[in-house]
């Protein structure tokens, strides 16, 4: 099967500074894929390398089987991109900017662009440089979608959008995905990633630390545990070392357990336990777990 995105040991250094290191990534065609990590982890470097804004130090990246560098123009025919910071050419109205973007893609019928602008309440007669952050973001979304791309690369796409427009954007993304478009979503808003994406990759200090189904990530690797005990619990009570992130509220100790269920039960059985609650953690808790435990 052709992957929408595939990178092999993709590495980028800016002089001596690390961008990304040996990143192996596979984004399946037709999926909504989340890409998360804190500032400086390498998310934007990855996106810019995929789009050939910057060139890899080593390794390779492909978009629909086409080399991102050697076959970049052909590969980018299938890509729509919403950057994290949106800037437009001075003096252009949104209408002119959209016509220009369409011309660069060889698109003559702008019906799709006007329809998207209507749905997002975007005034296309205004100067692009005078738009508010939210409206500039809407314009960026429309220009990324007007050529009906097979792959949408979104870098913090909802930043600056009000909740109503965020909702409309989520609907548009779902429609795009339903027509077969792959979505690569880089975001800090983990609840958004959790809501929209099926699979997620976590990047830390330029390296991939996890890449799995969100459901699997939540079920398999990590459990959120609350135990009612007479005394406070700590790492010493779990010799396996799988428990972390301890906190105490009243008579309840809460922690995260990164191990299989049998091991958890065996370790809990040694404790004087009055009550027990085991839940799936949120994506945010998983994310923080990766960052704390691997720091």
């Amino acid at each position: 099967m052709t992957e929408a995105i595939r990178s092999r040991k993709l590495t980028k250094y800016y002089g001596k500074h690390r961008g990304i290191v040996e990143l192996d990534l596979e984004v399946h065609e037709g999926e909504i894929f989340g890409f998360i990590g804190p500032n400086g982890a390498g998310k934007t470097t990855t996106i810019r390398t995929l789009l050939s804004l910057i060139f890899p130090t080593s390794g390779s990246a492909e978009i629909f089987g086409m080399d991102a560098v050697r076959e970049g123009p052909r590969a980018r025919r299938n890509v729509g991109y919403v950057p994290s910071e949106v800037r437009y050419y001075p003096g252009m109205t949104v209408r002119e900017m959209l016509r220009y973007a369409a011309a660069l893609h060889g698109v003559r019928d702008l019906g799709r662009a006007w329809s998207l602008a209507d749905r997002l309440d975007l005034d296309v007669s205004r100067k692009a440089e005078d738009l508010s952050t939210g409206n500039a973001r809407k314009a960026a979304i429309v220009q990324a979608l007007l050529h009906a791309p097979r792959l949408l690369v979104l870098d913090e796409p909802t930043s600056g959008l009000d909740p109503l427009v965020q909702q409309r954007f989520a609907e548009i993304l779902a429609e795009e995905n339903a027509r077969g478009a792959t979505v690569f979503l880089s975001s800090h808003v983990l609840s958004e990633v959790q809501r929209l994406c099926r699979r997620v990759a976590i990047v830390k200090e330029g390296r991939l630390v996890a890449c799995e189904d969100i459901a699997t990530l939540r079920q398999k690797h990590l459990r959120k545990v609350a135990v009612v005990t007479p005394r406070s619990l700590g790492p010493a009570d779990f010799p396996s070392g799988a428990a972390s992130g301890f906190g105490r509220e009243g008579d309840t100790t809460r922690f995260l357990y990164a191990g299989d269920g049998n091991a958890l039960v065996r370790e809990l059985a040694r404790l004087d336990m009055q009550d027990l609650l085991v839940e799936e953690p949120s994506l945010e808790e998983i994310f923080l777990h990766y960052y704390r435990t691997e720091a």
Partner: protein
Amino acid sequence: MNAALFFKELRLNRTLFIVWAAVISSLILVTMAAMPTMLNNSKGMSDLMKAYPPELMKAFSFDAASFSSPLGFSVIYNMIYTMLLGSIFSISITARTLHREQAERTAEFLLVRPLGRGTVFASKLAAWLVLLIGINIVVYAAGIGSLAIFTPEGFSWSIRDYSVVSAYALLLMLGMGGAGLLVSVLARRARSLTGPAIGIVLGFYLLDIVAKITKDYGSIGWVSPFKWVDIDVTRQGYGLELWRALAFAALAVSTAVIAALVWRRKDILT
């Protein structure tokens, strides 16, 4: 080449083109209006010039013969400044054309489209060439027109010689534009390049003047493309010399080729 990008570049530089074309043409018309008086008093001008050091006269290409012919007058009062201003116009466009996409963060709009870096370069280069040729046509027309209007009776001038010196002006602007392309791709982070670009032109111009004044260091003047221009229009057998044309072509082509090679693999850090 991409037509949409080409026409967008033309539109983006439209105001710059109109302003510079108007300024240079107006300067030509205004100074040429004084020509009849100056030519009719050329004897007095020659006497006046004898009071100045010959090196200074040479530095600014002043000589007695220039004040007794319409073409000589036109070159001294107009063509040198046309070359200087035209070079600033040319380098201002090329120094900004590629760098602006990075400095103004529009690269994330343009370079994510299905265009190769080579296509982007070629489209911007073509737009610059059209603007450069356009401004040279306007300035040439203003020069020819003013010579036709203001040449007093009893004086003559050669349209061929004026065309030759105009061709040198175009070649100089091409060379300076090439240098601007190089500056555009070598500049790293967001910073305005207009100032440094103008500085390059003025630097070469001053170097040429200094080389003309100082006999001992005259050879360093060859570093400056201004030195490669032959403006001695009153000389017998004046014409476009092949080696000079080739020197300008080599400068323009080599800088453009190096700029294109750097641009093809340049990391765009916004």
